[in-house]
């Protein structure tokens, strides 16, 4: 455990006496893929935004590569749930905008080369000069992923990137994501609502508890359990549900979400 990303005692409170979550601590190793699952409102997106530097926590700190996170950085690529492409720019220009931001000194030809490589990574070369409005939801999200990869960040933050996609498209992009992540040895932190998605992608799964009133008063939310994914690394969508241990893993997570996630 080298603790490439360290989240220490993170807490967020909109009302001072009732923090949404508190005392959230976990580590990510270099090259690790970690998913976080929890019900709506438990603060998953807040945690991701704090790691991204887009939001601030009420308490606690985040360190990446030994340095404290204080604001957004090119070292952390973010894929947003709503793909967040600029609708007035073509695919090429959307990604070029990111590449130019990362390497302002690059020449136009070098930028275009990097853009092409990123677009090829997600298999969208044919649509490179199209506007986002001319693409399907899955293609837009692929562009979002290509943009995040194009800046070669030290880690990737994915905020429920496949939430708005249909099941078939989602499956295809999940496999693409796995192959890209394996190829580039990326460290990934990802929010999801989909238990199978988490089991397929993640090395570890953080299960979050919602805050709530108990007999002993208000208890803030936080990471309830950490599940280590013991399934073989080469798992894929087709063999996943035939693997030994898959159902135990899945039942454990579903049980947590149904019965243990609420105080």
């Amino acid at each position, binding site marked *: 455990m080298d603790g490439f990303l360290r989240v220490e005692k993170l807490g967020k409170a909109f009302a001072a006496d009732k923090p949404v979550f508190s005392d959230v601590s976990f580590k990510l190793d270099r090259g690790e893929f970690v998913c976080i699952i929890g019900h709506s409102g438990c603060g998953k997106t807040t945690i991701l935004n704090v790691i*991204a530097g*887009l939001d601030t926590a009420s308490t606690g700190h985040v360190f990446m590569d030994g340095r404290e996170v204080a604001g957004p950085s*090119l070292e952390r690529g*973010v894929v947003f749930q709503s793909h967040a492409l600029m609708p007035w*720019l073509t695919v090429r220009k959307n990604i070029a*905008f990111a590449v130019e931001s*990362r390497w302002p000194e690059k020449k136009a030809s070098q930028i275009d080369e990097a853009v092409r490589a990123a677009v090829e990574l997600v298999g969208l070369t044919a649509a490179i000069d199209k506007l*986002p409005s001319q693409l399907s939801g899955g293609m837009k999200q692929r562009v979002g992923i290509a943009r995040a990869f194009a800046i070669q960040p030290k880690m990737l933050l994915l905020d429920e990137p496949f939430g708005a996609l249909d099941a078939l498209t989602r499956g295809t992009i999940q496999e693409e994501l796995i192959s890209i992540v394996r190829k580039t040895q990326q460290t990934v932190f990802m929010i999801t609502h989909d238990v199978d998605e988490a089991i397929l992608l993640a090395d570890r799964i953080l299960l979050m508890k919602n805050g709530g009133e108990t007999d002993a008063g208000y208890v803030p939310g936080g990471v309830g359990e950490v599940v280590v994914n013991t399934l073989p690394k080469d798992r894929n969508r087709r063999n996943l549900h035939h693997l030994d241990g898959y159902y135990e893993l899945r039942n454990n997570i579903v049980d947590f979400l149904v019965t243990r996630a609420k105080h």
Partner: protein
Amino acid sequence: MNASLFKSLEFRAGLVSLLIFVFILAVWHAATLQSAPAPAPTTPVSAEQAEYDKLMGKSAPAAGETAKTTGFPTLAQMGSTVVKQLSNPFYDNGPNDKGIAIQLAYSLARVGLGFLIACLVAIPLGFVIGMSPLLRRAFDPFIQVLKPISPLAWMPLALYTIKDSSISGVFVIFICSVWPMLLNTAFGVASVKREWLNVASTLEVKPLRKALKVILPAAAPTILTGMRISMGIAWLVIVAAEMLVGGTGIGYFVWNEWNNLSLTNVIFAILVIGVVGMLLDLFFARLQRAVTYVE
């Protein structure tokens, strides 16, 4: 099949437009029919009487000249005025007698200058107001009070301080076109999607680059809408402003021809104002289409 249907719809609409136009002309013609000039008196007049009639504006029409009537101009008179004005639009016979193109050029120059200055003020200021909730609140009372003031109400103050009627006209155009642009720019900038700003933040985009590459294109359709509204208002106001300050311009032309009791020229000027206003609007509509994006 579909295309031909669309085509035929356009064709039919054009046909109806033409019919409406012919109908208007027919009504005009019918309404001015009885005001044809009475036959000229056949009794010879003495030289003194002729001179007196001339001074009283009652001289018999010279040969070849269109007969003057006291009523609304006939279609033929209107037509000859249009032909005469359009065949020589650039003549300049001194301060009160200039061709329509010259008068239009004066008006367009004033509108263009006032509008340009308004752009230079409203767009940067709107940007700042749109980005800062503090400034938005601070500026709001001023904007709310100044916006509903008729631009012509500024005229005395402008004339007194600027001491130049032409520049006062420009100022009036500036003051009337600044508000819609300011409000639209501020609104457009304030409602740029959070996610695009987040993208810019995670890419560590510098403020100026963010303003030009993210916020400006995102807000451009709204800003252009403001500019289009402003131009519409500016073209409405310039006529009134020039009537007031006089000297040159299409507004002054209208007023001058009214003083000359030349209704044909007044009607001609009204048509010109309408056509130019339409062209200006078309121009901004095209610009607007160029910056609009589909999400």
